């Protein structure tokens, strides 16, 4: 860590001063603009999901099945857009608008797998599919089990 060199520092700035200076000179994220695009793109992706639900419902699926089928369709869409190299371009502007929807989940599954293809199908694609999906499943499934147990004890 800072300030423990064998030779005294040449620069006349303490680590604390330097960190303050860094905070001042580092540009902040443009929160308003980022939030606007997250809202627009995230909203649009969800609206598209609703259109797909409506289509499945019109085709005779029940409410629950239509919703599940739409989620699977959106995963396919997110995966394909990642495959053709479009999703990261959307992500540059949309930020969380393209990360939070399930299409973003698909993106974070495909992106590492695609890129580590050159390391083989088992330890490359197979293992890397779960770089982000793994933690999501670990925390999601564990939480659901805890929820189920609490519900069991409650009743």
């Amino acid at each position, binding site marked *: *860590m*800072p300030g423990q*060199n064998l*030779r005294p*520092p*040449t*620069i*006349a*700035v303490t*680590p604390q001063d*330097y*960190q303050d*200076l*860094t905070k001042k*000179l*580092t*540009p*902040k*994220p*443009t929160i308003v603009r*980022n939030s606007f695009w997250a809202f627009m793109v995230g909203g649009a992706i969800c609206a598209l999901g609703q259109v797909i639900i409506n289509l499945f419902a019109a085709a005779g699926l029940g409410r629950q099945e239509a919703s599940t089928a739409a989620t699977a369709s959106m995963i396919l869409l997110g995966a394909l857009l*990642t495959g053709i*190299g479009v*999703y*990261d*371009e*959307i*992500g*540059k502007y*949309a*930020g969380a608008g*393209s*990360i939070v929807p399930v299409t*973003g989940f698909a*993106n*974070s599954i*495909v*992106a*590492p797998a*695609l*890129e*580590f293809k*050159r390391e083989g199908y088992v330890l490359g694609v197979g293992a890397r599919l779960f770089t982000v999906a793994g933690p999501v499943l670990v925390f999601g499934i564990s939480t659901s089990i805890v929820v189920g147990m609490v519900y069991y004890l409650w009743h």
Partner: protein
Amino acid sequence: MNLKHVGNQTVVFANSPVILSSYSVVGPMEAQGPLGKTFDKVWPDNINGEKSWEIAESKLLQEAMQGAIDQAGVPSDQIDFMLAGDLLNQIISSNFAARKLGLPFIGLYGACSTMALGMAVGSMLIDGGFARHVLVGVSSHHDTAERQYRLPTEQGGQRSLSAQWTVTGAGAIVLGPSGAGPRIPAVTLGRVLDYGETDAGNMGAAMAPAIADTILNHLQDLQRQPTDYNLIASGDLGSVGVDLTRQVMQRSGTPLGPEYTDCGLLIYDQKQDVHAGGSGCGCSAVVFAGSIMQRLKAGELKRVLLIGSGALHSPTSSLQGESIPGIGHAVVIEA
């Protein structure tokens, strides 16, 4: 024996080694930047038909080194050492390029400061009488660096405004004891400084204290002023790091004037959406091997101080929350 070491950290050569040739190879994005015309060779895309980005990077380095040898016109049996380094784990780009070239090889790692480090070590080898000619080269590649240090390239998300764009490119030079070309009269090797920056998306801030420290020691060791140089160029501090370096130098009583700039700011256009500027071993290497060498040869620049800047962290150390150590190596080049 006369000691060539001067002051705190500087070496002044008895017979300044000569840069006999320089060669740069870049990707398409670098060619579209403001320095596009100064590079020797441009690839049509980042992979150029190779089977992986890593192999492509190694090929970049190999082409740059071969180009420098050809231009120097030195027979390969008179090149006694090849000094090379890059950013990939175990410096594989350099190892694989060395496998192809088959010269006695010294692998170097100074992160993005490796070109300046190689020039310094190479000059010492020559002036020390340990080699007739030394080949120095480094490479970096945007896609190999992204996936090693950050996220997969296809992953959607926003890069922070202080983030930099790794240059796809390789630069190489041939150093010799005599002949025509710019000379290296002195070098100042840096020390590692860490002022507590932990954000790997703000590498300029992590490296700036080390750069300022090296510049100050260099000027003090040689009793010089910043204005003794036509150009003081740091390697890849980017806009945030440059602002911080100026502030730190100002507070330390040696403000830098218009002679100071950064290779990371020169290589791309603001329009290219690279945020704080370029980075990577290749950044200072191709800017030096291209633009700066041409301006030295044209007499436009008389004396240049190139300070390679390196962030000495790894993805593992960043995940573990360690702050990022920085280093700066300075090389004086005179026309």
